[in-house]
């Protein structure tokens, strides 16, 4: 950990509730989103999408469309100069599907559409209306193919193949101990099946890009893009040009939540193709309906959990079998399911854990990254299961969890010893228990269940541990560039992008902390792939730890050079000097600070006159991780964060309606960088998590989505969000240069089980499928669903609880 050299553990600026640096522009309308931008001479690009969720394309005739009024270009797969496939992990997604002979390879033929959102042709025209009219003139001949929509069916040998190489996208296994041995001494064995829904990110701003052709065969793209470097790789590959010919920037983003990755990459590739073909700037904007149809979703999971508990109530064996619906393309499925397999057993001590997670191709909308990234599904399952076990053991769920959660030095199911940071889950649970009055309420509401009542109250808890950043998924390093101007103002630019989550404020605050200047002296520039090194994707809640640590590194380099000059000016040794609040001074023990008359601005001016380099590139490489593919053992993530949620609900016994009245969140995210931003993350994360638990499901029938806009796909409104109480347990972690870790996703991953557990406390009934809609809460299943969802078909009955020695 590195703070100022004088006051290692006393940040002067970190933790302050500084207002977000982009806030004013957003409320005044000054902020410019991609759709607010236009280029001189631009044309509009639109996409013809598939008419079937699974079909072979036998003919494709675009001649009539080419002649339509205003049309400048019509492109098909044949017009792609480079690699026609994209994909962050597996290159299996065609930029455009085409007819046979248009290309392909690696077992992913190009002449097929695999989901309704697939693109078949592109049109560029002078106006958007002309471009859309021309779409109707394109003739596509389809030969429909059998559709597979249940990922478990997709894994059976007789299933239709979505990709020729097979429907299995990935299979991760964790083999820790031997559950066969563990179940031998189990006193009770619990077998439960859970299911979680496909959901939509529901970012406010639909996808949008503008691509402009530039000299040398390249393009410049501006868009609502989350992961600029991933997009750059794909655009360069599709155009067949080197990376330095493709420049990607982002405008102000209207939310992403993991959602503006692959879908933006595909859109950027399409716009780039049109820009190269027309020689003109091309703008593409999805309508909300196009966005919902085309964009990837959060994976639906089917989770079979089996847990053995010994006579003392400790978990002695766990066996988990999980299937994820990847939809038509792999996208981030291999990494999403990696996080699931690591965290499936929850933050609980258990000597014997075997977990299998498989992701399967189907003809559903493809699924990929969404806030949580494979954790909300497994957290729902394990947190509901542990809650049920607690009650069965005669304990309240909070006390039971405190008995079995990880503590310092415990070993996770991947064989990783939790060390080098404070394993604070017990502290977090104790805090949330006190704040919410959990134990007393839980017993009271449980007792009240006995009497009839129109409205029942319940309280529920859930907790989690979460690996920070990418873990053993891949390379984990990031850059931030810090420049001090001759007047002492500062420009920070980073490889970490801001999509509304507050990265620019957090990263700027890290730089300001180390430089010793107030935050209002810092300007943060949006990411530009040609001006900052590839810093990986802004995902996995890694912005503050990776971008912020790189900012601290850069700022420390510049500060060191400036202090040399200050030492000369003030006649003090460097080791005595401190910069704070824009003033240079001397620091003593215990963080005391005596300012001199030298300001940071004057010092910067003097450094400039002396030719001192006032800029530096900071680089932060994450500590090492490891992974053994066969056994699923290793240092899965370099450190972890801990959190707990408590929900208090009122259930309407007549209608099944659940009102969440009060909500508590306690997180240990390491050192809090910005308290306002951190609290904002919690509020937003909980609101999204409540939608997941109570309202949302992007239903798809035979590959056809049932909802196309927010009139039918309902997310929580401000009216549905409860009173929130947010607390932080701050244990600075040496993994982050300023002690910071992660918060964005932890806030979102346990709200659903907290609410569902609260419903169980109120009603005595356990819901194992979310969303817990009114019908689900009242009668235990959804009546709107045509046919039963997989888990009900597969099991055909109630979950079982076998008690050793009591079986017949």
């Amino acid at each position: 950990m590195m703070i100022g050299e004088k006051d290692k553990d006393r940040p002067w600026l970190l933790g302050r509730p500084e207002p977000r640096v982009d806030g004013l522009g957003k409320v005044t309308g000054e902020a410019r989103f991609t759709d607010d931008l236009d280029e001189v001479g631009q044309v509009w690009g639109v996409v013809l999408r598939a008419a079937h969720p699974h079909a072979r394309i036998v003919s494709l005739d675009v001649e009539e469309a080419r002649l339509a009024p205003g049309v400048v270009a019509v492109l098909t797969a044949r017009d792609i100069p480079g690699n026609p496939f994209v994909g962050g992990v597996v290159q299996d997604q065609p930029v455009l599907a085409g007819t046979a002979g248009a290309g392909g390879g690696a077992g992913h033929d190009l002449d097929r559409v695999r989901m309704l959102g697939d693109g078949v042709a592109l049109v560029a025209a002078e106006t958007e209306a002309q471009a859309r009219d021309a779409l109707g003139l394109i003739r596509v001949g389809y030969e429909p193919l059998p559709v597979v929509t249940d990922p478990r069916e997709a894994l059976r040998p007789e299933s239709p193949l979505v990709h020729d190489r097979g429907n299995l996208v990935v299979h991760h296994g964790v083999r820790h101990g031997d559950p066969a041995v563990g179940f031998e001494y189990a006193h009770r064995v619990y077998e439960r099946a859970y299911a979680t829904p496909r959901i939509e990110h529901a970012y406010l701003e639909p996808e949008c890009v503008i691509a402009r052709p530039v000299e040398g065969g390249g393009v410049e793209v501006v868009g609502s893009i989350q992961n600029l470097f991933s997009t750059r790789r794909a655009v360069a590959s599709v155009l067949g040009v080197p990376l330095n010919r493709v420049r990607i920037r982002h405008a102000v983003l209207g939310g992403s939540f993991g959602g503006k990755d692959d879908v933006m990459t595909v859109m950027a590739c399409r716009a780039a193709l049109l820009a190269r073909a027309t020689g003109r700037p091309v703008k593409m904007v999805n309508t909300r309906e196009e966005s919902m149809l085309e964009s990837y979703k959060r994976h639906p999971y089917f989770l079979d959990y089996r847990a053995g508990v010994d006579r003392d109530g400790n978990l002695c064996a766990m066996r988990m079998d999980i299937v994820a619906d990847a939809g038509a393309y792999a996208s981030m499925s291999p990494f999403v399911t990696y996080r699931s397999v690591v965290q499936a057993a929850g933050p609980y001590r258990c000597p014997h854990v075997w977990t299998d997670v498989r992701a399967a191709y189907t003809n559903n909308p493809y699924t990929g990254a969404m806030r949580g990234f494979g954790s909300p599904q497994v957290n729902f399952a394990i947190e509901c299961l542990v809650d049920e076990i607690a009650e069965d053991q005669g304990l309240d769920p909070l006390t039971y969890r405190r008995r079995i959660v990880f503590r310092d030095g415990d070993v996770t199911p991947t064989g990783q010893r939790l060390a080098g940071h404070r394993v604070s889950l017990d502290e977090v649970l104790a805090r949330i228990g006190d704040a919410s009055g959990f134990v007393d309420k839980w017993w009271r509401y449980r007792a009240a269940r006995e009497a009839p009542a129109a409205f029942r109250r319940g309280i529920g808890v859930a907790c989690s541990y979460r690996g920070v950043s990418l873990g053993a998924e891949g390379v984990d390093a990031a850059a931030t560039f810090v420049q001090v101007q001759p007047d002492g103002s500062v420009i920070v630019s980073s490889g970490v992008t801001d999509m509304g989550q507050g990265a620019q404020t957090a990263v700027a605050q890290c730089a300001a902390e180390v430089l010793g200047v107030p935050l209002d002296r810092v300007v943060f520039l949006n990411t530009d792939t040609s001006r900052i090194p590839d810093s990986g994707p802004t995902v996995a809640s890694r912005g503050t730890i990776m971008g912020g640590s790189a900012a601290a590194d850069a700022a420390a380099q510049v500060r060191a050079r400036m202090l040399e000059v200050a030492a000369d000016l003030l006649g003090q040794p460097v080791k005595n000097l401190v910069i704070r609040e824009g003033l240079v001074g001397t620091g003593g023990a215990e963080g005391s600070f005596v300012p001199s008359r030298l300001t940071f601005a004057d010092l910067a001016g003097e450094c400039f006159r002396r030719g001192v380099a006032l800029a530096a590139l900071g680089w932060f490489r994450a500590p090492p991780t490891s992974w053994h593919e066969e056994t699923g053992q290793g240092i899965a993530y370099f450190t972890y964060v801990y959190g707990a949620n408590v929900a208090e609900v009122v259930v309407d016994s007549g209608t099944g309606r659940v009102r969440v009245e009060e909500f508590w969140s306690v997180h240990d995210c390491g050192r809090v960088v910005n308290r306002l931003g951190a609290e904002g993350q919690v509020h937003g994360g909980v609101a999204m998590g409540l939608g997941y638990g109570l309202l949302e499901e992007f239903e798809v029938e035979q590959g056809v989505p049932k909802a196309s806009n927010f009139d039918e796909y309902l997310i929580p409104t401000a009216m549905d969000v409860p009173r929130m109480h947010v607390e932080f347990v701050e244990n600075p972690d040496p993994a982050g240069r300023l002690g910071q870790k992660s918060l964005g996703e932890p806030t979102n991953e346990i709200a659903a089980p907290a609410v569902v557990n609260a419903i169980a406390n109120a009603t005595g009934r356990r819901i194992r499928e979310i969303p817990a809609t009114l019908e689900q809460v009242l009668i235990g299943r959804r009546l709107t669903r045509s046919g039963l969802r997989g888990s009900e078909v597969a099991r055909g009955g109630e979950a079982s609880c076998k008690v050793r020695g009591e079986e017949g």
Partner: protein
Amino acid sequence: MTAPRFARPRTLDEALALLAADPEGWTPVHGGTDLLVRMRMGMAAPRGLLDLTGIPGFGDIRVEDGQVVIGAGATHAALAADERVRTHAPALARAAGLIGSPAIRNRGTLGGNLANASPAADTVPPLFVVGAEVALRGPDGVRWVPIEDFASGPGRTVRGATDLVVAVRFPAQGREVRSAFERLGTRKALAISKVSVAVAARVEADGTLREVRVALGAVAPTVIRARETEGVLEGAVWGGEVARAACDAVRREARPITDLRAGEAYRREMCGVLLERAVATIVDGSRS
């Protein structure tokens, strides 16, 4: 899609004249909260928009000759806040206050809600139970249509092509006859009703229910009266056996479908639950 032509008449006569001259060429619009969405989705393509917002007094609410008369242009927000509506048709005030969100309540109008003829329209069940009539004005003058005869199916009404919905009226019955409205949506705001129930009744001193009217929303192609249920409640005292019989009756009378918002069986069940709550509101209110 070519942009529709647009007219904003300054008087009702001017609006009617435009409509009479080219009945197919104009679609009346006020708040536009339904029509504009349908246009954007390609479900409506009017040749012309006849904007009624420029007609002075089109949304006035007044009481005359023992009737509450509400101009078609009255917004949901106005209905929810109006003291006369709250006194003479509390169910209507409550329903209007639950529609959509503040923005939608500030734009959407009673006339539009009626003309749009959604089976889930929240203002309609309350109008059923207060015995409302809808004024249609055409070239030959005004005719008053009982609310129960106004909608003929989802999105269909008896409004002629040269007619405008100009007003709604119902008896100013004061607090003598009470009414209540209950609805069930997926979330607290911006939710279309899965089921709605309106009830009106006079409660005698001994608790006997008189002049009972019950209407159900979102459980049939149009809002419907639940006459068998009314029969059970008429002359009865609310409680135990009566409540059970009334709930059974209302579940029988509902004819719901399964759609994205709710299942058929759930809707049927909820008619009973909401009926109980609505009647209880009326009975409790009579005691205070």
